[in-house]
């Protein structure tokens, strides 16, 4: 133990399963839990929708809520849950000195305006003029900021008063990996004492589905668990709406505040395989090696997306080590994109804290884990690019 260890002292989670670490734990330890699915709204795609959320609980001012589209609201809400959980919310001094790294997407466009422009484009050759004509008159002025990437962090500053520093990373799962990795490095080096880190993804918007489907990544047809989509129609990804924020804290700082510590964050590793050159298998193996996995049975919280190539590579790498018992949580939450890695780390920390493993999420592929998980592996192998892993240890 070192006073500069990085510990997890707050967790904020939202997914189709509910909100908060307790609700997630209670759901996820139920054997044969059924996922919450929405198969008709975006047919032929299935998504895991947002649960019922009372936004007022974390975003008190209606005026603030109106300045955000759903993705920003969701992230701001999940961040508030994490701050509450860590006993930081409402503490002006701790918020004003708290750093923040948000893994962000963005781009919730006005679907009605876009559809009207596209429809009009069928009978117009001067499409650039059409665009000016429609956008200048029909875009809501506030929409720009309400969907802008760095304004999730901006809203967290405004609503929760986190103002030590504010950085937004972009780039799908890799943004979440880099956010956790950078935050961890800053605490270890003594640059920061407490950092809010995480992300959110709101999939119930056609542009969010389009972002995957332009490369054919989405699974179509009947839903299947994340490990069982090879060979099915489509590209294997089933998305979900959700968010995950963590309060990472220097051990000494958390202990001085007398806070509950869920777990210690061990090594956080990231990589960029040049996948077109076939480097993914080697990269995953290299990350596993760098992680210096402990001896004995190991629980792994896998962020596998379902994307055929990446998921097959991860599955075979994990299966190559007989000590690893993997849990593909996307089976139950859907793929949460930028939030995927923070979500994996949060679920790993919960298992360490509760001294129990999750039951299998997919009985045909995953194997049981009977012991007490003292160290848990969290992974996020990007559906298209970038890879990350972390070891989460008993505090």
């Amino acid at each position: 133990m070192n006073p500069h260890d990085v510990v997890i002292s707050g967790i904020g989670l939202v997914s189709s399963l509910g909100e908060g670490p307790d609700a997630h734990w209670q759901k996820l330890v139920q054997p044969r839990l059924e996922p919450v699915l929405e198969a008709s709204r975006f047919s032929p795609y299935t998504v895991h929708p947002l649960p019922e959320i009372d936004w007022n609980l974390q975003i008190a001012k209606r005026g603030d809520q109106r300045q955000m589209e759903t993705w920003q609201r969701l992230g701001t809400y999940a961040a508030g849950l994490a701050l509450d959980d860590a006993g930081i919310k409402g503490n002006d001094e701790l918020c004003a000195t708290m750093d923040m790294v948000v893994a962000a997407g963005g781009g919730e466009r006005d679907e009605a305006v876009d559809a009207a422009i596209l429809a009009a484009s069928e009978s117009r050759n001067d499409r650039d003029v059409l665009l000016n004509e429609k956008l200048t008159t029909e875009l809501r002025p506030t929409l720009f900021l309400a969907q802008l990437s760095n304004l999730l962090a901006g809203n967290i500053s405004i609503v929760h008063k986190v103002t030590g520093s504010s950085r937004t990373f972009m780039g799908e799962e890799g943004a979440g990996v880099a956010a956790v990795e950078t935050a961890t490095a800053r605490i270890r080096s003594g640059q920061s004492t407490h950092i809010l880190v995480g992300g959110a993804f709101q999939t119930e918007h056609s542009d969010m589905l389009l972002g995957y489907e332009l490369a054919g990544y989405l699974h179509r047809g009947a839903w299947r668990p994340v490990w069982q989509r090879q060979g099915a129609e489509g590209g294997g990804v089933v998305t979900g709406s959700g968010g995950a924020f963590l309060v990472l804290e220097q051990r000494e700082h958390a202990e001085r505040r007398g806070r509950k510590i869920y777990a210690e964050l061990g090594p956080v590793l990231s990589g960029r395989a040049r996948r077109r050159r076939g480097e993914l298998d080697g990269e995953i193996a290299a990350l596993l090696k760098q992680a210096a996995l402990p001896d004995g049975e190991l629980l792994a919280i896998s962020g596998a997306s379902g994307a055929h190539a990446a998921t097959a590579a991860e599955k075979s790498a994990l299966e190559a080590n007989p000590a690893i018992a993997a849990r593909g949580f996307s089976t139950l939450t859907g793929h949460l994109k930028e939030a995927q890695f923070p979500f994996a780390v949060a679920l790993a920390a919960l298992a360490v804290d509760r001294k129990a493993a999750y039951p299998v999420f997919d009985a045909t592929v995953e194997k049981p884990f009977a012991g007490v998980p003292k160290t848990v592996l969290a992974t996020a192998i990007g559906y298209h690019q970038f890879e990350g892993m972390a070891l989460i240890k008993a505090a």
Partner: protein
Amino acid sequence: MANLNDHMGRPIVAVTGIGVVTSLGVGKADNWAALTSGKSGIHPITRFPVDHLNTRISGMVDFLPSSSKGASLLTYELAETAAQEAMSEAGLDAGDFGGPLFLASPPVELDWSERFSLYNSDTHDTGAERLLRVARGLRELDIFETTQFGSIADRLADRFGTRGLPITLSTACASGATAIQLGVEAIRRGECDRALSIGADGSATAEALIRFSLLSALSTHNDIPEKASKPFSKDRDGFVLAEGSGALVLESLEAALARGATVLGILRGCGEKADDFHRTRSKPDGSPAIAAVRAALADAGLSEDGIDYVNAHGTSTPENDKMEHLSLSTVFGERISSMPVSSNKSMIGHTLSAAGAVEAAFSLMTMRESVIPPTINYDNPDPAIVLDVVPNAKRNAEVGTVLSNSFGFGGQNTCLVMAREPV
């Protein structure tokens, strides 16, 4: 033997390569010649029709092969061009950089030209349903790549052989400064000997222009484009949307000296502070910007007396210039009225995600060349803003230290302190 560590015992971070592209041209030589002769790069928009638009001028980069190919490809080319110049100045193998990449770039969205062509390649269904159906029939990844936030950095990582997972970031108009800050921090933590920090923005599309217009952020002085950006003037009426890129090769001073590299300057300190007041406006007392400047000074180990020149954020919006003056005069006191403070944006406009990196590049050149670029279009001073803005003509001056400010929407405030020499 030079001191290799700073006042806090951290490795000193040197700059060994600089690259820049703006509407004034490609590369340091052309940009510096134009900038020091008070030339403006702001011109009428020709990339798309300007019917129905209130603002019809910009500082777009219209002379690159990708200038008409959409935001993603142009942003990549801007980043690559600046990085190539920086790498070559640093004397490094451009295919095997061997350090991490930090890229400040605009958030990406599917371009309208692609939306139109996808939509009109089919006739079944309408709206998003049609787009999704066409999308899943595509057999190549070119369009997909333009919608992935990490793709530009991924391509740059391939091109330059940077190490590990590249970080793509956005802190709005402070992004370029944040990219540099991340590189500085990585070197100080000992994670690497060198880092490549790039800010690039080629996203001046019609929709981007309209979005900023709807926020009343842009100048509408269309008639004489080169006069539209007038930071600190009484009749300033908004910023001018622009494109550009800046790239720095950062190295620990120790590694730079060990390989015999020329040290172009020192990245001495970085400071930041978020504002919780409003999405586009600053806290009326200016306290977050003040805190960011002070944090940068403290990080650099300098007092208020230690800064010779301020490279201002100076956007030419009524709000920014007023608040920037308030913060500078609070930090520097009476001395501010005699300190040179100039805005590159008077000539190149606001290059958004690139601005912090472009202006860091110009700050370093200011020290190396002993010439301060002017604030042009300063014909009608704002009486409420008493600053030595280096009005209208360059000034020869020994400059040993520079403060470069970047303030952005969403309460982002990042300041960099650069020095000509190691301590």
